């Protein structure tokens, strides 16, 4: 009953944009450092899985398609980056800004309210996902694993997916007692999603119960849509996944803003 109130749409003003700008300014200042990890990470995965594992698995059959393992892997790498960028930006990074730097306290003394601050943070997290997805798209395109025209559709999707995982990260920031405890959602949720969302192998080879569980993961749906786009086989499953992602994004966004308000406004 009392939990319902956390799903009430918060009052957000256009001033949320100012928080996005603040984070953008910090990012721009440290861009040399900011761009290296999203560039290196997919290369590591690509070498380990694409070229290492891909040596043994040359082609893969799933959903009636036959593609090379590297082509199967490429959209998963983009999705992993979308998830990680958004989640980590709005969990660890946001927690540091909130708890250690007191940045939120400083901002809410201006015409911005806490709802604006959190919204700005989430939009920034989504932007980070989009930037990092863009970098990976360039990398995998350079290897000829995706068609550069098709994959451009993934850019807007990466913002939506980024918002979803940013809200998920912010949700844990809102309820975690300290920064160390943020390790729990990472090990119990993010890592399983990274491994079991149809990323490195098709979900159809998992036992039924596991498959059902995996379908709860938002990551499964994000990977499904991204792969549909890069392999040019978008159909009803991708449409349902998109609806799922949209609904989850809206709910998690509202919930994370309200729970953060509960934490900070007393």
């Amino acid at each position, binding site marked *: 009953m009392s939990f319902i109130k956390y799903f009430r749409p918060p009052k957000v003003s256009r001033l949320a944009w100012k928080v996005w700008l603040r984070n953008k300014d910090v990012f721009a200042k440290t861009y040399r450092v900011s761009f290296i990890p999203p560039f290196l990470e997919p290369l590591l995965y690509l070498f380990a899985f694409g070229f290492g594992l891909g040596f043994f698995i040359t082609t893969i059959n799933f959903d009636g398609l036959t593609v090379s393992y590297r082509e199967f892997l490429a959209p998963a790498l983009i999705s992993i980056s979308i998830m990680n960028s958004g989640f980590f930006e709005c969990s660890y990074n946001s927690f540091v800004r909130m708890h250690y730097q007191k940045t939120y306290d400083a901002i*809410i003394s201006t015409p911005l*309210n806490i709802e604006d601050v959190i919204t700005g943070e989430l939009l920034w997290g989504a932007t980070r996902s989009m930037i990092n997805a863009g970098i990976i798209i360039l990398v995998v395109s350079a290897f000829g694993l995706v068609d550069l025209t098709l994959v451009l559709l993934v850019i807007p999707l990466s913002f939506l997916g980024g918002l979803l995982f940013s809200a998920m990260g912010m949700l844990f920031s809102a309820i975690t007692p300290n920064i160390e405890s943020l390790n729990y959602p990472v090990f119990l949720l993010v890592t399983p999603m990274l491994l079991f969302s149809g990323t490195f192998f098709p979900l159809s080879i998992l036992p039924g119960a596991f498959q059902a569980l995996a379908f709860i993961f938002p990551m499964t749906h994000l990977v499904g849509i991204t792969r549909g786009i890069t392999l040019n086989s978008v159909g009803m499953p991708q449409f349902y996944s998109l609806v799922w992602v949209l609904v989850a994004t809206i709910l998690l966004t509202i919930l994370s803003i309200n729970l953060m308000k509960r934490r900070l406004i007393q």
Partner: protein
Amino acid sequence: MPSIVVAKGLVKRFGNLVAVDGIDFYVEEGELFGFLGPNGAGKTTTMKMIQCVSPKTSGSLEVAGMKIDEKDREIKRILGVAPQENNLDPDFTTYKNLLVYARYFDIPKAEAERRAKELLKFMQLWEKRDVNIDKLSTGMKRRLILARALINNPRILILDEPTIGLDPQSRHLIWDKLRALKSEGVTIIMTTHYMEEAEQLCDRLVIMNLGKIVTSGVPAEIVKEQAGKSVVETNILPKVMKCVKGFKKEKYEKVGEKIYIYTERPRHVLSTLISECELGKVQVRESTLEDVFIRLTGRELKE
């Protein structure tokens, strides 16, 4: 002078704890108003309600004629806030801190740059404009926080312990700046633990204890009213206590080994003590705000 902040029956509860227990006060436009009280008295909580960052439990609180729970963004637009805790943005330089903060108030870029430069000079931070804030001393950080609070040309400046932890030079510098701002017509509301600071700066003040206002008014008048003209301070000895009980007009307070006698006739008290009791050390001095503070809020530690 019209009142710019008016509180009536203001209450703030945190669960079972009553942090602010039905207080009434008003602040007039253009005055420097102080909140005094021991730690946990409810000063900061009251300030946070004025700032619209902590909702009230009950009662009413209006800032510039606007209710805090209806017009929070509008109120925050005319406030400048310097918190007790350093919350400058560590990701930016001194100058950029001001620019980023100005943006939250929708101040156009050119205007923000002009004001930021002016404020850095006003607060004697111009040489440090391109320095990251972790390289600033405590005093510089306090001044930057004050400069930041002024970026939107506030009508009301809210300062929570503005000189805490500062050396005398830095403290006097801040006092000078506050006097300058007051003369420009800015209303200033501050909390402080320093009695000297309150006596020097505040036009009026309230002393809070356990969530209530225990006294209010002009500092000199409060001192006269609550602690009399003078204080006779001596050690507690059995004979001294007997003497003191003989004084009909005097209030006194025992603290540890000492007794403080508040009086309008220090000569009489002193001569009686000297002639009729066996005295240890004795001291006569003018009453201060500190005497009032301690009389009203008790000597024991509050935490």
